[in-house]
């Protein structure tokens, strides 16, 4: 192929095949559009290849290993050992299954897939760099979904022993000593996983708490579990620099009292945030403006300042989560197909696959107070739930937050076993403007964890059955 020779016309061009882009492509195709999707790497994006899916596969393997290593059930004796290479092979098989699925779905929906790196050359044209040349694509509409990449700190340059989440997920062995710089959800999920597999883990966090976006009482339960695995947590600590040698790495940091300390490890994992991939795609040539945070400016329909280009996912404002990317992908595709869709969610759940799991949706108690003045709060502990007791998993609680004036649920937090599944009902409740009474009057099966949702609502109404009214 000769460079720049022909200009191909495409109806809808999607750039980036992560959970934002591939979902947008499928929805647009379903709505009758002819769709081409371009990705420079694997289908599925960060999420399927280097994010959600591989991390959760390792987490569930570690959970299974741990549950068998230390049986929580009296009378059941179990032992466990692992072969990390095989665990990684299995993880890869999970990833391959999911990305293979995406390929099938794109094919089944007749989406044209191009492997290559795209950048804008004009407001309605991109050039796609491929292994053996390049091609030009002129589009009627474009959906930009190029996602994000780990932030690299100047004083902690990546190397053989200074790694990011992608590096950590592909280690072929369990490090003896692992330092995690950044105690956000990615750092905690990975740190706790390696701790379960036997690493001596230290977490260096700049703020005064790990998982700072979550309720302190929720975080306390995760900290308790981390302690079980001898994970050291240094808060208000500032990483200063690293020194790599052949078989170890030294991290220097200032602790909360301002003392300089050095810690030696096999690897330093840097998880201090992610930055949007908006810098190398020629946005200026397409008339696409950025916010001062480097995110793409979009309206309620995901339209950029170039009216034919839409942007979704990690490159636009809002939480950098896969399900937000997919939601926006559907909106953008529908708008292009002429539907009156807008980004119109009342809430986005966020889940941390820590042990115990944490999940949150809508407003916290503090946020709700600011917004509504008076709030009604209902809190219910796992320890008073029959199913949790029968599962031997009684650490945790559910908290519901309602607008006191009308009883409408505005937020919910869950920490404990299966929090990731319990939160689903609460997200629907918020979207439906359900009241605490609606939830309390909905029969929840016995004995299930879902009963706690009903009981927390009763607590919020001042009529708790399974805890004594305080």
């Amino acid at each position: 192929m000769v460079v720049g020779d022909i200009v191909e016309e495409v109806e809808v061009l999607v750039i980036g095949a992560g959970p934002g882009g591939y979902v947008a492509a499928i929805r647009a195709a379903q709505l009758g559009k002819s769709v081409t999707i371009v990705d420079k790497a694997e289908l599925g994006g960060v999420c399927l290849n280097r994010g959600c899916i591989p991390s959760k596969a390792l987490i569930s393997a570690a959970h299974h290993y741990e549950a068998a290593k230390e049986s929580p059930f009296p009378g059941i004796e179990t032992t466990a050992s692992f072969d990390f290479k095989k665990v990684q092979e299995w993880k890869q098989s999970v990833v391959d299954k999911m990305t293979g699925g995406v390929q099938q779905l794109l094919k089944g929906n007749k989406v044209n897939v191009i492997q290559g790196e795209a950048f804008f050359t004009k407001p309605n044209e991109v050039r796609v760099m491929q292994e053996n040349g390049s091609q030009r694509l002129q589009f009627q509409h474009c959906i930009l979904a190029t996602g994000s990449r780990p932030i690299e700190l100047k004083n902690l340059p990546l190397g053989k022993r200074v790694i990011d989440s992608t590096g950590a997920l592909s280690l072929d062995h369990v490090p003896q000593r692992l330092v995690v710089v950044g105690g956000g959800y990615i750092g905690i999920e990975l740190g706790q996983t390696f701790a379960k597999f036997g690493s001596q883990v230290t977490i260096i966090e700049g703020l005064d708490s790990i998982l700072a976006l979550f309720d302190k009482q929720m975080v306390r339960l995760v900290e308790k579990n981390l302690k079980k695995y001898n994970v050291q947590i240094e808060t208000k600590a500032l990483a200063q620099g690293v020194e790599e040698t052949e078989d170890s790495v030294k991290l220097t940091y200032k602790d909360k009292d301002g003392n300089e300390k050095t810690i030696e490890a096999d690897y330093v994992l840097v998880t201090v945030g992610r930055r949007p991939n908006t810098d190398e795609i020629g946005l200026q040539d397409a008339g696409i403006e950025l916010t001062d945070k480097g995110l793409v400016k979009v309206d309620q329909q995901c339209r950029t300042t170039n009216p034919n280009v839409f942007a979704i996912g990690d490159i636009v404002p809002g939480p950098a989560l896969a399900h937000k990317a997919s939601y926006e992908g559907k909106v953008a595709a529908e708008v292009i197909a002429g539907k009156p869709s807008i980004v119109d969610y009342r809430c986005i759940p966020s889940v941390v696959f820590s042990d115990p799991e944490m999940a949150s949706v809508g407003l916290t108690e503090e946020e709700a107070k600011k917004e509504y003045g008076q709030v009604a709060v209902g809190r219910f502990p796992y320890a008073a739930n029959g199913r949790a007791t029968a599962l031997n998993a009684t650490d945790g609680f559910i908290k519901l937050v309602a607008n006191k004036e009308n009883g409408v649920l505005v937020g919910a937090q869950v920490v404990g076993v299966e929090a990731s599944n319990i939160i689903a009902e609460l997200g629907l409740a918020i979207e439906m403007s359900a009241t605490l009474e609606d939830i309390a009057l909905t029969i929840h099966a016995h004995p299930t964890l879902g009963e706690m949702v009903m009981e927390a609502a009763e607590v919020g109404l001042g009529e708790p059955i399974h805890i004594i009214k305080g």
Partner: protein
Amino acid sequence: ARRGGKRRALATPHVRALARKLGVDIDEIDGTGPVGRVTEEDVRRFAEGGRGLAVEPD
């Protein structure tokens, strides 16, 4: 985000979608459902009353 500082209507996702389809601003509608929820009926009635405003992106 709130629009113009006004309270957002209490309404389910499909009622909100219906309002968009009919080109009315759901936040303008007084809901007749429980706790003031805007119902499908409310939206249709409002749309027929011709007081609809097209939703415009911010």
